[in-house]
C-alpha cells in the first residue's frame, strides 16, 4: 500500500467534528457562566435579580447549568471527538457522510427543541427531571432526539469499523478506534433505561396521553442510564489519556492489551450498578442494593488499571526526557504544553475524585453524604475536571488542527489550566467538607433559613474557587475564539497517536471479539435489574399526577 492509499482526504470529517465542537463549547460557555452565580449565591452574594429578564430563579439557572454542562457539552463533544478519532486511526472516511451530517442536525434539532422550554422556565426540573415534576413535553422530546442521535453515531462507528475490517481481516483494530467503538456500544446499551423512561413514561404523560406516572419506576430507569452515563463522559477522556497523552508526554503507552482489558470491563460492568444512586430510596430491597454495591466495586478494577497504566506511560515519557528518581521524572514532563498540562492536572484531581467515589459507593457511608454538597464536590472533580478539563486540553491541539491556525496563546492556555486546577481544588474541598457537615445540595443556600454556624466559614471558599473557575473558563473561551479568528500563523500538527511498549500484537484474540463481552454485559444487567424492574412494572399503579412547582 502506498502512503496515498493509506491517507484519504478526511477534510469532511474535520468539518463535522468542528460543528460538534462549536455546539459543545457554546453550551459550556452558558453552563459555566451560570455556575458563577451559584457559587456566589452560596456565599450570600445573590446576583440573580440582575439576570431576571431571562433567568427567573436560582433553580432555573441550576437546571441550565446541569443540562448544558453534563448533558449537552459532553454529548456533543464526545460525538465529534470520537468520530474524528475513529476516522483518523482507521485512516478511512466515515461510512456514510450524509448519515453523519444528518445525525449532527438531528442532535442539534433535539437540543433546540429541549432548549426552548428550558430557557423559557418551563422545564425547571434540574438535569435529572424526576417526575412527578412535570416539564413541557418539548423538553422530553428534545432530549430523546439527542439520545436517538447518539445511537446513529453508534451506527456510523459500527459501519465504519466493518468497512475497515473487510479490508483488513487479520489485523488487530487500532486501539483509538477500538476504544471509541467500545464507548459508543457501552453507551447504547446503557441508554436504553433513559430511552424507556422517556418513550413509555415522560413523553406520553407530558403530552396528556396518560394521566399518571410513577416516581420510583422513573428513578430506576433513569439511574439505569445515570451511572453508566458517567463512563460515557469519562471513557473519551481515557481514550485521550491512553492513546494520545503518552505521545504528548514524550513516551509510549505502557501496555496496549491492558488498555483493552480495562475498556472491556467497562463495557461489561458500567450498567448493573445504578442502585448505588438509590441506596436511600424506599421501595427497593436491601439485597439488590448490596448486589449493585458489589458490582460497583467491580468497576473500580478497570478504573485502577487505567490509573496505573497512565501513570506508567507518563513515567515512560518523563524518563525518556531525562527524568530520574522515583518522582522527579514528573517534573520533566513537557509542562509548557497546555494540552498536556491541562490533562495531567485533571488526572491529579481525578485521583481524589476516585477516592471519594469509593466512599460514595460504600453502602452505609453513603447515608452520610447522599444528596449533600459532598456529591457536588465529588462530581466537579470527576466530570467537572477529569472530563471537562481534559476535553479543554484536547482542544488545545484539536482546534489548531481543525482550523489550521496556531493556538493563539500557549501561555494563556497554561494559565487557564492551572487556574482551573487551583480553583477547583478550593471549591471542591469546601463542598466536600460542607457535605460532611450536613449541607444539602441543589439548594439556594444563601436564602435558606437553616444555615448552620459551622457552614459559614466554608461558604466563601465556594465563591472564591467558583470565581477562579469562571475566570479560567473565560480565558479558555477567549483563547479558542482568538485561535479561530485572529491567529495568523499556520499550524503544522499531526494527531498525536502514541505507540505502545507492549503493542496490540500481544493482545489475546479474545480481546478483539465482541460477542462474548456483549453477552456477559447483558447477562449481568438482567441479573442486577431484571427482578426489580419486573416486580415494579407489574405491581405499580401509574397514578401519580404531575406538578409544576417552580
Amino acid at each position, binding site marked *: 500500500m502506498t502512503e496515498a492509499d493509506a491517507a484519504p482526504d478526511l477534510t469532511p470529517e474535520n468539518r463535522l467534528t468542528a460543528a460538534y465542537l462549536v455546539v459543545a463549547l457554546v453550551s459550556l460557555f452558558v453552563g459555566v457562566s451560570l455556575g458563577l452565580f451559584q457559587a456566589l449565591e452560596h456565599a450570600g452574594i445573590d446576583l440573580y435579580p440582575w439576570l431576571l429578564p431571562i433567568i427567573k430563579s436560582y*433553580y432555573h439557572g441550576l437546571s441550565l447549568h446541569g443540562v448544558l454542562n453534563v448533558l449537552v457539552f459532553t454529548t456533543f463533544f464526545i460525538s465529534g471527538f470520537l468520530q474524528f478519532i475513529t476516522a483518523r486511526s482507521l485512516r478511512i472516511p466515515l461510512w456514510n457522510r450524509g448519515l453523519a451530517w444528518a445525525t449532527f442536525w438531528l442532535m442539534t434539532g433535539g437540543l433546540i427543541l429541549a432548549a426552548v422550554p428550558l430557557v423559557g422556565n418551563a422545564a425547571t426540573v434540574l438535569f435529572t427531571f424526576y417526575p412527578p415534576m412535570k416539564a413541557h413535553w418539548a423538553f422530553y422530546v428534545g432530549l430523546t432526539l439527542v439520545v436517538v442521535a447518539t445511537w446513529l453515531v453508534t451506527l456510523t462507528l459500527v459501519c465504519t469499523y466493518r468497512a475497515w475490517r473487510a479490508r483488513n481481516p487479520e489485523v488487530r483494530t487500532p486501539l483509538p478506534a477500538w476504544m471509541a467503538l467500545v464507548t459508543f456500544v457501552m453507551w447504547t446499551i446503557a441508554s436504553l433505561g433513559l430511552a424507556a423512561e422517556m418513550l413509555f413514561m415522560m413523553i406520553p404523560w407530558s403530552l396528556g396521553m396518560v394521566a399518571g406516572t410513577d*416516581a420510583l419506576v422513573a428513578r430506576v430507569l433513569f439511574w439505569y442510564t445515570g451511572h453508566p452515563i458517567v463512563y460515557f463522559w469519562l471513557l473519551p477522556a481515557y481514550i485521550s489519556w491512553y492513546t494520545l497523552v503518552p505521545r504528548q508526554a514524550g513516551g509510549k503507552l505502557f501496555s496496549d492489551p491492558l488498555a483493552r482489558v480495562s475498556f472491556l470491563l467497562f463495557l461489561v460492568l458500567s450498567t448493573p450498578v445504578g442502585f448505588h444512586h438509590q441506596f436511600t430510596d*424506599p*421501595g427497593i430491597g436491601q439485597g439488590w442494593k448490596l448486589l449493585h454495591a458489589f458490582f460497583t466495586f467491580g468497576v*473500580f478494577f478497570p478504573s485502577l488499571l487505567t490509573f496505573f497504566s497512565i501513570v506508567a506511560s507518563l513515567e515512560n515519557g518523563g524518563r525518556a526526557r531525562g527524568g530520574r528518581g522515583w518522582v522527579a521524572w514528573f517534573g520533566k514532563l513537557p509542562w509548557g504544553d497546555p494540552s498536556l498540562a491541562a490533562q495531567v492536572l485533571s488526572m491529579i484531581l481525578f485521583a481524589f475524585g476516585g477516592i471519594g467515589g469509593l466512599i460514595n459507593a460504600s453502602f452505609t457511608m453513603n447515608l452520610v453524604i447522599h444528596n449533600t454538597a459532598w456529591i457536588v464536590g465529588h462530581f466537579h472533580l470527576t466530570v467537572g475536571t477529569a472530563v471537562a478539563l481534559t476535553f479543554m486540553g484536547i482542544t488545545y491541539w484539536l482546534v489548531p488542527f481543525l482550523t489550521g491556525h496556531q493556538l493563539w496563546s500557549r501561555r494563556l492556555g497554561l494559565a487557564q489550566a492551572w487556574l482551573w486546577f487551583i480553583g477547583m481544588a478550593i471549591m471542591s474541598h469546601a463542598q466536600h467538607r460542607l457535605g460532611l457537615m450536613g449541607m444539602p445540595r441543589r*439548594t439556594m443556600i444563601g436564602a435558606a433559613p437553616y444555615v448552620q454556624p459551622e457552614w459559614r466559614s466554608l461558604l466563601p471558599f465556594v465563591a472564591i474557587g467558583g470565581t477562579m473557575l469562571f475566570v479560567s473558563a473565560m480565558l479558555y473561551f477567549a483563547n479558542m475564539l482568538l485561535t479561530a479568528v485572529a491567529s495568523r500563523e499556520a499550524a503544522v500538527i499531526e494527531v498525536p497517536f502514541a505507540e505502545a511498549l507492549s503493542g496490540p500484537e500481544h493482545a489475546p484474540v479474545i480481546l478483539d471479539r465482541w460477542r462474548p463481552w456483549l453477552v456477559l454485559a447483558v447477562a449481568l444487567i438482567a441479573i442486577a435489574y431484571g427482578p426489580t424492574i419486573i416486580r415494579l412494572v407489574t405491581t405499580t399503579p401509574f397514578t401519580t399526577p404531575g406538578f409544576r412547582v*417552580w
Partner: protein
Amino acid sequence: MRRGTTIYLYELFWILPSIAIPVGMLVALVVFTFGAGVHLPGDHGRVEPTAVLATPPFDQPGTVQVGPGQYEVRMVSGIWSFAPNEIRVPAGSTVTFVAASRDVLHGLFIPRANVNVMLIPGQVAHVTTRFDRPGEYPFFCHEYCGIAHHTMWGKVIVEPASKADRHDGDSAS
C-alpha cells in the same frame, strides 16, 4: 517481536493491587454493614400518592410513643413543609420515622442522627435512629422540590431525660 518478560511482570505488578484494593474495601464494607447492623431503607410497601392524607398512619401526622423509650413519627411531606416539623422526644429514645410524600419528591435528612432517606410519592419510607444527647437536631429536605425547596425544614428537639428519671438518678447518688 517477542514480548519482554519485564513488561509482563510490570503488568502483573499493576493488576494485583487493582484487584486487591476493591476486594479489600468490599470486605471491609460487608463486615461493617453486617457487624454494626446498619440498615439502608428497604421495601416497606406503597401508599396511594393521591390519597396519602386519607391513609393511616398519615391521616394523623405526629409523634406517638409506641413503647418504653420508643417513638414513632408519622410524617407527611409536601411542598414546602414537613408535618410535623417540630418533634420532641426525651434523650435516649429510639425513633422510627414513617414518612411519605403527598406531591413531588422530597428528602428527609437529619445529619446529626444519620438519617438520610428519599421521600418518593407512592412509597412508604421507614427509618430508625437513636437520639442520645439532648439538643436540637435540624432536618432538611435534601431533594429539589420546587421554588421554595430551601425553606423546607424542621427540627427534632431532644429533651434531657424527664424530671422524674433525673430525680431517681439524684437520689441514688
